[in-house]
């Protein structure tokens, strides 16, 4: 994926003014009918989820289909799924920035926003999966009158708290720092209360070279921090399983396997969102088939690695000669929950192989369907890892099944509702494309396009006025 693959980052022969207009004018208009429809659907899903969560917190975790054997089901599946989704955003914004991939500029703002929203969705689950979520603050090591009693630094769940907390903070800061120049643009186009609000958030940005210089260094530094961070976050999430003794979880393969899976699922989600957004927001010139194609290649690559990871898991189990380990994988592929396993394999390993074909990569409809399929597959991957490993572990007497309840399904729907509600709000109120960054990639071509001014506009009057004032 080098920038040479891109002759142009965007289509449509835009100049600076047009870029500004394209990016900012949708924010200044009323929402379209399509936007409102989408928003209402998403908000309804969110409302459904809130009702489900409220009911569950009020009544008890028993409203989920968990049992003595399967202590985690949809909750942690959704958590890992959403954390994984977030990874593509960071990868696009940080890793591709470090690799100076200019094509990222069209999609990085939205991808980062997606990261933040996905992490927010993810963060809900560890909170509500607690039996007593109102005591969730106990996971923080704050001074307390209990001794003080600290926390268990050995617990991967605690690592999660720090990893997700850091990830959210750094992602949000990175996103916001990158957003400041565009907020300033919006501010300068706005009036009244809108201008005052935007003034506050744009931190007095005036585009001075000094600011730009520091801004760029800060972005590179944050990208440098975010890159190992993003790798660590899903590695830490994977340790929730990898450090456990449960066969099917207890594997050193997990950190890289989870990270690549996260990238895979994240890119699938980016594709899903971008394909929708370019249509709805009319960003066809900015999110071009070349962008889609590049992401498809990443999907194909990561999907194949994910397939390799699946095979490695089976190989490890076989080669370990550990009967419990071997059984778990036999059970995964042929046991009572084999259907989930085969959904996972077909969606994540087999389906992406279609992306080897240029024809598929260039068909937006095919790519959209594939992205959805991969999203489903990656959700099932987490489900398979969590549930099939738990439901039949060591002692046969404790084996049991897991059937989700309506409350869990509603909560899952609600998390999608939250994600899309936030994303739709983002589309309406925040410049979805990093206009300032786009301007850097078009500048070479557009340098001499502006006609020279016919005459010097005299500004002497201005001087006088100022002096007088």
């Amino acid at each position: 994926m080098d920038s040479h693959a891109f002759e142009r980052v965007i289509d449509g022969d835009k100049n600076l003014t047009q870029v500004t207009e394209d990016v900012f004018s949708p924010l200044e208009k009323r929402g379209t009918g399509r936007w409102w429809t989408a928003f209402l659907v998403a908000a309804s899903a969110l409302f459904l989820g809130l009702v489900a969560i409220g009911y569950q917190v009020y009544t008890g975790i028993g409203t989920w289909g968990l049992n003595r054997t399967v202590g985690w089901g949809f909750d942690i599946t959704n958590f890992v799924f959403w954390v994984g989704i977030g990874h593509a955003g960071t990868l696009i914004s940080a890793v591709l920035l470090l690799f100076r991939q200019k094509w990222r500029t069209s999609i990085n703002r939205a991808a980062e926003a997606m990261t933040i929203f996905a992490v927010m969705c993810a963060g809900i689950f560890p909170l509500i999966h607690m039996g007593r979520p109102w005591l969730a603050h106990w996971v923080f090591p704050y001074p307390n009158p209990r001794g003080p009693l600290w926390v268990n630094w050995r617990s991967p769940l605690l690592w999660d708290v720090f990893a997700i907390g850091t990830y959210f903070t750094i992602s949000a800061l990175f996103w916001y720092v990158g957003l400041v120049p565009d907020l300033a643009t919006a501010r300068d186009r706005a009036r009244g209360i809108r201008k005052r609000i935007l003034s506050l958030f744009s931190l007095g940005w005036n585009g001075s070279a000094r600011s730009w210089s520091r801004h760029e260094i800060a972005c590179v530094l944050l990208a440098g921090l975010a890159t190992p961070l993003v790798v660590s976050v899903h590695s830490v999430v994977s340790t929730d399983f990898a450090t456990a003794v449960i066969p099917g979880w207890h594997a050193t393969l997990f950190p890289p396997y989870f990270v690549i899976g996260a990238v895979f699922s994240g890119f699938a989600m980016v594709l899903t969102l971008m394909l929708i957004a370019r249509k709805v927001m009319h960003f066809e010139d900015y999110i071009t088939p070349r962008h889609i194609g590049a992401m498809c290649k990443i999907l194909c690559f990561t999907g194949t690695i994910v397939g390799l990871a699946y095979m490695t898991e089976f190989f490890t189990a076989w080669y370990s000669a550990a009967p419990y380990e071997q059984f778990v994988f036999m059970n995964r592929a042929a046991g009572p929950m084999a259907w989930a396993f085969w959904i996972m394999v077909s969606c994540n390993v087999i389906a992406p192989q279609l992306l080897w074909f240029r024809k598929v990569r260039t068909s937006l409809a095919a790519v959209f369907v594939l992205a959805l399929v991969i999203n489903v597959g990656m959700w099932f991957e987490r489900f398979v890892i969590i549930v099939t490993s738990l439901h039949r572990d060591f002692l046969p007497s404790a084996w049991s099944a897991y059937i989700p309840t309506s409350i869990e399904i509603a909560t899952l729907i609600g998390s999608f509702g939250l994600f899309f509600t936030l994303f739709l709000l983002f589309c309406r109120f925040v410049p979805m494309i990093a206009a300032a960054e786009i301007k850097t990639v078009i500048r070479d071509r557009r340098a001499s396009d502006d006609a020279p001014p016919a005459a010097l506009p005299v500004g002497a009057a201005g001087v006088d006025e100022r002096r007088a004032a």
Partner: protein
Amino acid sequence: MSRRIHVAHYTSEQRLLGAVKGCRDAGLHVLDVRSPYPIHGLDELVGIPRSRLPIACLVGGVTGLGLATWFQYWTSATDWPIDVGGKPFDSLPAFAPVAFEVTILLAGLATVFGLLFRTTRLRAEIPEDELRVTDDRFVLVAVRPDADVSDAALARLWIATEAVHTSEYVEDER
């Protein structure tokens, strides 16, 4: 003591860069350049010193690493050692993930706070004629040292560099 500030607007990066060179040739001191996007190579031209943000980042990171490692060790092995799963009190390998995350967190916070500390103004007044800087205008701000450069030369310079708008004002120097 006061000084005269000259502001010139341009429509492209090339013209701006030309103007910066022209100003310097003309003996004007370029105070600042404002642009809708970052322009590489301006730092030297305008004379912007090397940023110290990386240092802030490093300091934040080292602080985070030290603080997190010490705090985990202190709470688990010194303040209240508890036998957890037969692991030693000072389970240093298990402390690595949190230490790493806190390192990143503090490094990132230090960077961002450093950036904000150096660049932001909450009540910035953007002059009405500079609103297009964030859109498609390039603005050059220069100061004329005393009277070395004549008004006419200046006007010629603006025409030569294809400025679309100019203004000047007097700033009281503290």
